[in-house]
């Protein structure tokens, strides 16, 4: 029974008592980690479905997937990879800081992690999804060289930051799949895999950010410290998994040619 004793002025992590059915705090911590690893394995297998679909269709219709990957810009993917890797590092660092009771630095690291997560989503939606849906392209987007699309003069967005590209838009998921430049009739499969994979991954990024935000708040309130930081550790594991998935998604989706 982890009842908060109000008379005790020590921070929570010093007062923390393990659940009544545990024999020791260390025991509880170890079990929570084990339990969470079990959960992570379910996550891996969840994405396993996407990877399986990719594996099958990539092998059956290599043409469609190569052409499809050319519609992506590997630079955005690479940038996102770096962003996630850095955030993974800061997450791990924040755990170290909590373990060594450097709470302000821990908070800093968690903030950076959060911002990186945000950055990742930002890049994903602004520079990857939106153009494919709207036909508007980031001005510096080199992906334009991949095909014969032409920029429509005068049609711009966000104060000229984006230019409209004739015929390149409409790569929306699902019923609105249109492929002005598709020579391979199996292109829909590529886009199905691309959107499902990245969207579900993005969803996980968001969940991870929620967890981290909660941890950040509680670090501020002195919940966690050298002897009790289960949630920090666990949220960290989740965040690293998100990173892990992306480490595989990036080459599979962006670097195929």
């Amino acid at each position, binding site marked *: 029974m982890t009842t908060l004793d109000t008379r005790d002025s020590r921070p929570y992590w010093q007062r923390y008592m393990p659940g*009544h*059915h545990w024999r020791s705090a260390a025991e509880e911590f170890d*079990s929570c980690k084990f*339990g969470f690893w079990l959960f992570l394995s*379910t*996550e891996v297998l969840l994405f*396993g479905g996407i990877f399986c679909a990719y594996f*099958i269709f990539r092998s059956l219709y290599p043409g469609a997937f190569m052409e499809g990957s050319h519609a992506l810009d590997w630079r955005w993917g690479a940038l996102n990879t770096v962003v996630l890797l850095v955030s993974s590092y800061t997450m791990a660092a924040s755990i170290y800081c909590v373990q060594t009771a450097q709470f302000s630095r821990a908070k800093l690291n968690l903030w950076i992690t959060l911002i990186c997560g945000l950055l990742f989503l930002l890049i994903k939606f602004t520079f990857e999804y939106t153009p494919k849906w709207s036909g508007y392209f980031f001005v510096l987007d080199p992906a334009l060289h991949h095909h014969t699309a032409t920029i429509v003069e005068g049609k711009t967005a966000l104060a000229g930051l984006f230019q409209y590209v004739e015929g390149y838009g409409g790569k929306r*998921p699902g*019923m609105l799949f249109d492929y002005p430049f598709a020579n391979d009739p199996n292109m829909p499969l590529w886009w199905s895999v691309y959107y499902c994979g990245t969207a579900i991954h993005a969803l996980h990024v968001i969940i991870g950010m929620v967890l981290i935000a909660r941890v950040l708040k509680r670090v501020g309130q002195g919940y966690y410290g050298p002897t009790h930081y289960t949630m920090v550790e666990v949220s960290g594991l989740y965040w690293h998994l998100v990173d892990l998935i992306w480490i595989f998604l990036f080459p599979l989706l962006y670097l195929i040619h």
Partner: protein
Amino acid sequence: MAHDAHHHGNYLTPKGGFWTTVLDWATTVDHKKIGVMYLFAILFMFFIGGLAALAVRLELFEPVRVQELANGTKELTGQFFAPKEAVDAANMQPGNNIYNRLFTLHGAIMVFMVIVPSIPASLGNFLLPLMLGAKDVAFPRLNLLSWYIYVIGSIFAVTAIILGGVDTGWTFYTPYSTTTDPGFSRVAIMTMAAFILGFSSILTGLNFVVTVHKLRAPGMGWFDMPLFIWAVYAAAIIQVLATPVIGITLLLLTFERIFRVGIFDPALGGDPVLFQHFFWFYSHPVVYVMILPGMGVISDVLAVQSHKKIFGYRAIAFASLGIAGVSFIVWGHHMFASMSELASMVFSALTFLVAIPTAVKVFNWIATLYKGSIVLNAPMVYTLIFLFLFSIGGLTGLPLGTLSTDLHLHDTYFVVAHFHYVMMGGTIMALMAGLHHWWPKMFGRMYDERGAILGALLVFIGFNITFFTQFFLGSRGMPRRYASYVDEFQIWHQISTIGSFVILLGFLVHLFVFLASFATGRKAPANPWGGLTLEWVADSPPDEHNFHHEPIVTHGPYDFETTVPPHWNPADYPIPEENKVVAHHH
């Protein structure tokens, strides 16, 4: 102990007024209460699914035919769920649609909401910590969460039904499931229901695995665990490793319906067979999530009720793990009619592997009876019924695993009969055995033996009447999921339908027995059957924290020859001298 000071009584004693108690149950993290809540939720869904099954049988009592009357007018006969005045051939559709929704309802409810969680979530939740000598499962709040998720999932499913039902069959095969009743979200809701229920299943499994690893009582090594724990543990591993795949499958299916992504959609180059692989990668292992805990129950009940050390403890334990392992490489035998020849060959060969550990278990159970001291009470009767029906179910699996014969039997009533013998004849019978066996422990009252045995026999007889006929139907070529059929099958369908109502009668008797036990059942002793495992050390019903002192294990779970059961008077249990020579551990 400290916690004994401030409350007396067991986990069932009300915490005060009605609403206080309700609130206490709704927010409890006590594995026993959660187990009981699961039990009632599952029994309720079992009732709904059962009604659907009866409705299905009624529709099949007569084939739909057009009789041409003397005056030349036509009359549509044999449709149970359609307007009788329907004359035109095309008016069969309404009736068929109702039928299709009914069997989907039956299948989906029974699989996702009854049989998968049945034993692990109810008996498992209640008994696992008790048997391990722990105060609770590893993550009590997660446990409660999983119950609520189960309820939410069920609500989703019921919503889909209320909105007009789903006619995809519980297997959701594409492209039918992605194209049927376009514009409506019922199918999406139903798939989401299954998706949500999957989470509940994952959380339970995860909880059990950690509990078994970390919370065994002092002195309890892996091979001192009751075989029920071994079985639940093996099942839990499958739940954790297989369920996420159905998660992504149903997610993609929903995307396919809502956003029209094309991974399983031939119109976009996708592949329906790929869906079948996704689906069965989960749904075959989950068959063992259904049956393994049942086998565990049987191992325990059999040993306890015949006061006999289980034969080949390690063999049974490893068989459980073996089945769990093999279950991941045999899913293709659901697809012999749709797979490539090579894959069919490989999967057929692998499928026969499952038969080996299963056979070993059966042999061990029967060998356990040898020189036992067997008492024929309800749990034991149900155990024997299990052995009877499960053997049939298992053996009829052989022609289905055999390629040439399966091409004939696949998707016929032979399959229906086979999996009912395994799922109902196996899991549900085991659930009934376990329910009677641990009833005194769960609710602190005895049930009426005679009534229970009567119910058991009725169920047994009705079950065989209902489902053995379906073997003949199948091998004679009656396909599954047919709302109507050609005349030559009618006699068999009629027998089957009659049998199904005998089953209903049997379960009504059980219902009555249980209610009677609540009302007038006599107080149960702590150890009515003389079991040796730790749950019998606790009171019945157990104390809020299970044990007054953390129990310490000193003997094997089935050392009946050498140990006086807890709470028993040694005078009532005169251990023969020759037994005492050496109290060796397994």
